[in-house]
């Protein structure tokens, strides 16, 4: 059951800026198991999407170091042809912006059929039981599959939507189509990059329930990238918090929500309006997220955002420390951290 699906070791993704390389993802280690939702939380610029793109091999200019093992194969050293055999089949991704992820000139149905067509080899084995005597290459069969997928993701009139174009659909509907494409070949590993940002709460809930069902039915491993701690609390089994390219805290969801340690995690949590109507001040993290070029590469990266904590509290070379079984925190500053008004 607890089979490891994806293991990332010492992954660094660097981008060239003015002739120099800057690491947007810096020495990241993590694992994703089967039937598990791992949430990656962080603000914009923390490197969470860059990490997802590295796993999928979608960076064109970046230099990637380290190992990304998917079922024992190293994705980082694979050729594009080998990657293409995995992507869209066993490993797939839900993109953040459904409008730019869909082709505006193709009907919804055609786009989903294309996924089935290009990755036919696998759908043959996975869906052979449903073939009902037809050849898998037949157009009719693919159409049936597509309609089936559309109704699986909760689109009310699949036959009608099949012939629509992306611009005719609402944001929530488009996101469902993107999800239908991502799960078309029943992936074992699914990366969802902010799947519900910019959607209404009720639609967000439907999409999240869809992803959760996917996990339960297909026992897939899911990486859920989000900046919304509410979504994390609803969905995740484990959480990794990223700041400035590094994982600063990783733990089970229960341990994180009840016993967050790292100053960044604690600050993030206290900056969400929690619903008490007393108009208390929300917590604001001092300063700004440093840009890629100005990132302090030495010492604790969160140091400049909590200047009231003395220097000695930080480690010179911050390491991950285990505070509870399975709960790791970077740097020793968490031991001395307090909010400014405490």
């Amino acid at each position, binding site marked *: 059951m607890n089979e490891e699906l994806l293991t990332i070791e010492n992954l660094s993704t660097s981008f060239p800026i003015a002739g120099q390389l800057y690491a947007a993802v810096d020495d990241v280690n993590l694992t994703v198991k089967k039937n598990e939702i791992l949430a990656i939380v962080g*603000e*914009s610029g923390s490197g969470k999407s860059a990490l997802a793109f590295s796993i999928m091999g979608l960076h064109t200019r970046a230099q990637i170091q380290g190992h990304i093992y998917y079922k024992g194969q190293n994705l980082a050293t694979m050729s594009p042809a080998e990657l293409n055999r995995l992507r869209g089949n066993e490993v797939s991704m839900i993109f953040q912006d459904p409008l730019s992820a869909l082709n505006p000139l193709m009907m919804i149905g055609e786009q989903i059929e294309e996924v089935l067509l290009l990755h036919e080899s696998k759908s043959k084995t996975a869906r052979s039981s449903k073939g009902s005597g037809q050849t898998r290459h037949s157009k009719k069969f693919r159409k049936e599959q597509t309609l089936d997928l559309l109704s699986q993701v909760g689109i009310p009139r699949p036959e009608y939507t099949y012939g629509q174009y992306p611009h005719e659909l*609402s*944001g929530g509907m488009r996101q469902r189509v993107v999800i239908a494409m991502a799960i078309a070949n029943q992936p074992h590993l699914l990366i969802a990059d902010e799947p519900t940002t*910019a959607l*209404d*709460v*009720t*639609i*967000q*809930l439907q999409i999240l329930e869809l992803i959760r069902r996917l996990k339960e039915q297909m026992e897939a491993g899911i990486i859920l990238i989000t*900046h*919304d*701690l*509410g*979504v994390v*609390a*609803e969905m*995740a089994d484990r959480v990794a918090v990223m700041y400035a390219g590094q994982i600063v805290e990783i733990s089970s*969801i*229960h341990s994180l*929500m*009840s016993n967050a340690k790292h100053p960044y995690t604690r*600050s*993030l*949590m206290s*900056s*969400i*309006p*929690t*619903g008490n*109507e007393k*108009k208390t*001040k*929300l*917590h*604001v*993290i001092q300063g*700004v997220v440093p840009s890629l070029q100005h990132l302090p590469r030495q010492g604790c990266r969160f140091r400049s955002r909590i200047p009231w904590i003395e220097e000695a509290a930080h480690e010179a070379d911050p390491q991950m420390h285990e505070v509870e079984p399975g709960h790791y925190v970077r740097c020793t500053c968490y031991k001395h951290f307090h909010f400014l008004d405490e």
Partner: protein
Amino acid sequence: MALLEVRDLKVYFPVYGGIFRRIVDRIKAVDGVNLTIEPGHTYGLVGESGSGKTTTGRAIIGLNPITSGQILFQGEDIGWGMRGHQSRFRKDIQMIFQDPYSSLNPKKRILDIVSEPLRNFEKLTPAEEKRRVQELLAQVGLSSETIYKYPHEFSGGQRQRIGIARAIALKPKLIIADEPVSSLDVSVQAQVLNFMQDIQKELHLTYLFISHDLGIIRHMCDHIGIMYRGRYVEQGTTREIFENPQHIYTKRLLAAIPDLDPSQRGKRQRQRQLIYQEYDKEFSQYFDHDGLAYALRPLSDTHSAAIPGRGQG
């Protein structure tokens, strides 16, 4: 006296069709909205996309033509749309837009962006103008040398604060904030929300706060109106809406808010299931045959909901 009173506001958009491009239908974006905002309060307008909350806000400030209804500002008709008539309330109502990336002209310097309202209404010498802009920027926490920069040199949170500086330049009484933080990160969002509360006290501002995020609405607002397909389904104080929701649509909306306690997951899922079942079962009782809400019925002095009368449902 209420600062703003909206009476039976209707905004219909024509749909053109046929060979002569005649009006064949009308979309009822806002269909009979009533609301009252007291000075110094924050009124939250909630609804899903397409519910008409932004159209309501834009109609109040005069960016959308009004089909029928009245907008009273300090008891007087605001008079948008009268031909050749520049309303004298133009100064008193300002807007903060949703997207700080598209609401600032990329070709203008911050000085020109923030001083534009001043140039329209006040006759200032360039030196006075510069000083005023620097004061305004100091008020939103930006340093005075930023006035010669361009919008692309700022982060999202900073841009949103520039938008706020522009909105408060003429010392308005009412600010319409249309999803002011939905494109910002959590910690930046906290910064902008805190800041909006600070200047509200300082300048005695009144907000009409439009958002789909119920957590933020609860944090910011005194009164809440919930819209569905152009009509109100419920309105009341923040406490009444969150603790004693009466309309099935409100209940469903509240149930969808993500909860921060992961240990309650299973329990919450069951509660949601129940509310969804109730919603599906009783939809026809709460909405008429077109799927629209009924007229509001008062439940207390402040609380009213679109619940059909007995025998009617």
